[in-house]
């Protein structure tokens, strides 16, 4: 029997790598847009000021870029090292987007980031500008494919279980690539990167205003970043709305946990914080209908009949069907070479219950409930900080246009304090997405405990603590180098 500690440490290692990865990646995604806009302004206006402004943010981008790549490398390989069963069981589907990401996106990034950094005097202005945009586009394409892969874990589509090869096999590539969850997840994550980049640029620029240094640079950066950030935040809100609808449809337990909703039904309330609710709002958000049925945790565990009269199975019934599928699978494997007639019969039983195959690994219905307080509060941190940041960027843009921001110290301080908020919002979002899916590695298909590699707990603990040390040192160094670079400031060519 696999040790619980092994499952926990394997999860912890992946979560650690993913959390650190998402510290560095959103800044890459967001800064790429901000500096590309700035360089475009340089090419259009032929003003050296914009070139030096873009160059400063490129310098910050460079400090951050490599750590994101490094943590991404480990994430990709951890599917093999720590989740080997997963890699075989769904590798036929899951490997494809990762390979496409490498072939299409990474090479664009790798090629043009070098031109962006080192090509100022080697290539023409337009080629350089194209390279800067392509660096950002490459990062976005990379995000598309990795989120196609991740969304497939949230809502597996386009595959069939093959008992002969003992794995799920892809039967519809476009269903995987255009998974509705993937579309909203990509926009939600990519635009949240715009938010991060923008809030970061605004915060750093406000520090220059506080110090009364580089005023023109700071104001210009604030204007560009605030516009990018507001556009990005609205896009995050719209894609977040469809993410909510998808969660209600495909991952109702995640939604119930995010709302702390024990008993659901039509006209379900939205919880702002414990004790304060908006009646009917959850039904509107989740189904776009005030009478829409939103099941609670108990409904999902014990079964329910929704508003349209459709009966939904209890967890126990699903587990029973899952165990039946596993039993039929074992029988099929025994009989397939010796007794084809009997094998065909048990295969029918397997096919009838294969939808619940993953539930066969579940022993207790309670396992199906994720960590409710963690998901509930993470959701509130994400939405709360996200809404506040939108308001803040709108206020900042307003006062920048009015020419008053230079003298508003409280607003400048608030902008600086907003930097950790945008990171917390991003981390919280991923906690909702990933911890909310537990106990599943792939929703309804494969629980984490059946996905891990057979390793000793000691081996995983060793690498876990090694990564804790390495990533933490990297983060500390990156922050220190960034602070030094910011303190030194840009070398601005100001013709005004």
């Amino acid at each position, binding site marked *: 029997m696999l040790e619980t500690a092994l499952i926990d440490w394997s999860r912890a290692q992946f979560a650690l790598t993913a959390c650190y990865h998402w510290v560095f990646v959103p800044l890459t995604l967001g800064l790429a847009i901000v500096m590309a806009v700035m360089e475009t302004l340089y090419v259009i206006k032929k003003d050296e000021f914009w070139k030096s402004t873009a160059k400063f943010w490129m310098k910050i981008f460079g400090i951050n870029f490599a750590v994101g790549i490094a943590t991404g490398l480990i994430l990709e390989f951890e599917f093999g090292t720590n989740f080997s069963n997963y890699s075989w069981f769904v590798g*036929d589907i899951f490997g*494809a987007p990762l390979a496409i990401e490498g072939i299409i996106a990474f*090479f664009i990034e790798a090629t043009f980031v070098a031109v962006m950094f080192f090509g100022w005097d080697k290539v023409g202005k337009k080629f350089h500008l194209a390279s800067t945009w392509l660096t950002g586009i490459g990062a976005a394409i990379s995000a598309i494919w990795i989120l196609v892969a991740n969304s497939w874990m949230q809502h597996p589509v386009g595959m069939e279980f093959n008992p002969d090869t003992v794995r799920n096999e*892809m039967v519809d590539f476009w269903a995987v690539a255009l998974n509705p969850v993937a579309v909203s997840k990509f926009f939600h994550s990519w635009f949240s990167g715009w938010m991060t980049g923008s809030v970061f640029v605004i915060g750093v620029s406000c520090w220059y205003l506080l110090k009364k240094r580089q005023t023109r640079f700071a104001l210009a950066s604030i204007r560009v970043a605030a516009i990018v950030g507001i556009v990005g935040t609205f896009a995050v809100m719209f894609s977040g709305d469809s993410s909510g609808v998808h969660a209600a449809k495909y991952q109702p337990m995640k939604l119930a946990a995010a709302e702390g909703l024990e008993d659901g039904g039509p006209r379900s309330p939205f919880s702002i914080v414990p004790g304060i609710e908006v009646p009917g709002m959850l039904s509107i958000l989740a189904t776009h209908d005030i009478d829409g049925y939103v099941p609670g945790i108990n409904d999902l565990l014990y079964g329910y009949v929704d508003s349209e009269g459709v009966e939904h199975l209890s967890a126990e019934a699903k587990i029973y069907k899952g165990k039946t599928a596993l039993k039929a699978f074992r029988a099929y494997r025994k009989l397939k070479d010796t007794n084809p007639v009997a094998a065909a019969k048990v295969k029918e039983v397997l096919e009838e219950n294969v939808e619940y195959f993953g539930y066969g690994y579940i022993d207790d219905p309670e396992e199906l409930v994720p960590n409710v307080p963690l998901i509930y509060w993470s959701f509130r941190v994400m939405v709360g900080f996200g809404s506040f940041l939108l308001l803040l960027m709108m206020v900042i843009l307003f006062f920048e246009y009015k020419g008053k921001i230079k003298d508003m110290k409280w607003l400048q301080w608030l902008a600086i304090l907003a930097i950790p908020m945008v990171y917390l919002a991003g981390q919280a979002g991923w906690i909702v997405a990933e911890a909310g899916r537990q106990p599943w590695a792939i929703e309804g298909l494969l629980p984490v405990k059946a996905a891990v590699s*057979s390793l000793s707990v000691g081996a995983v603990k060793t690498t876990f603590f090694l990564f804790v040390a*390495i990533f933490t040192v990297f983060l500390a160094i990156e922050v220190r180098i960034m602070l030094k670079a910011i303190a030194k400031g840009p070398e601005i060519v100001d013709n005004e």
Partner: protein
Amino acid sequence: MITYEFLQNYWWMLISLLGGLLVFLLFVQGGNSMIFLAGKTEEERQLIVNSTGRKWEFTFTTLVTFGGAFYASFPLFYSTSFSGAYYVWMLILVTFVLQAVSYEFQNKAGNLLGKNTFRAFLTLNGCLGPLLIGTAVGTFFTGSGFTVNKEAAGNSLQPVISQWVSGFHGLEAVANPFNVEFGLMVMFLTMCLGALYLINNIDDDKLNSSLRGRLGFVFLCFLVCLIFVLVHLVTMPGFAVDSTGHVFIEKAKYLHNFLQMPVVLALFLVGAVLLVCGVVLTLLRKGFRRGIWFSAPGTVMVVMALFMVAGYNGTSYYPSTADLQSSLTLANSCSSEFTLRTMSIVSLIIPFVLAYIVYAWRKMDLKSLTRKELAETDHKY
């Protein structure tokens, strides 16, 4: 007619090509191993770091793509080898991660650990990365102790399909001399490529002459390892697989593979000649700086041929010494026909990717790196 078997072979060819390109691009690692060996002054070391630093993303990206392509096309290898040889792959990853950040951090104010620590990381990755990758690839010929039992998926308590026998999780590979010879061969090869690349990319007489000195020594080491590897390879028993998928030991299997696949043998020989020519011409002709133009394609060809010998002609490319019938073959470890077919369409984009890389690389490298450029540029490592 594009059959399932054709697709399996096509994808092994792509894996071989990516493997070849990866080993060629490990010139970045080889170049970094020269930071303290050939760079005597701070300026010379900075020239080396800035020369390889403009190419490291390609190596990194190729490594990631190599992993992704293996995952998509042969997922059973991905799950068995990475989880089994856990410590080896983790060590490889750690050295590459250290390398990735070291370029940006090494010369920046506030980097906490100091310039030389980060350069030591670059050198560590420069030597250990290729050595470990080579040692791991050596097991493609000698085998590893693992079992694959697909029935396990039906066991809700112990559902793991791939199990590694040794608690050393891959480190036991060093007990086999062939694996170590293979690792050393790859390491010295990348050092040769690194020196050749730097000679081509940096216009500096002093550093050039220092690099040529080191090139002679590492080339000699490479040749010794290559001879050991080749002698072992053509005499050792190999892991053959018949048309029913049954795996058995065959004497001199890899020699037979070379002889029964003359195209692969020709690829290997032409590649080896080109590789050697690149180095020898550089060593013999003082002003000759284009050795990498010969050795790079030579390396790709040699590595491709070795991968083909490991996987084609009825051979198990990832054999198991613990249970022969658990050995991985192209047929039993690959993705479904649908996935291979879909990914084959995606692979048609590769020539376009190569084309824009060559275009951008050429634009950036029209002029060699000099001390003057390094002194004048505002973005350097």
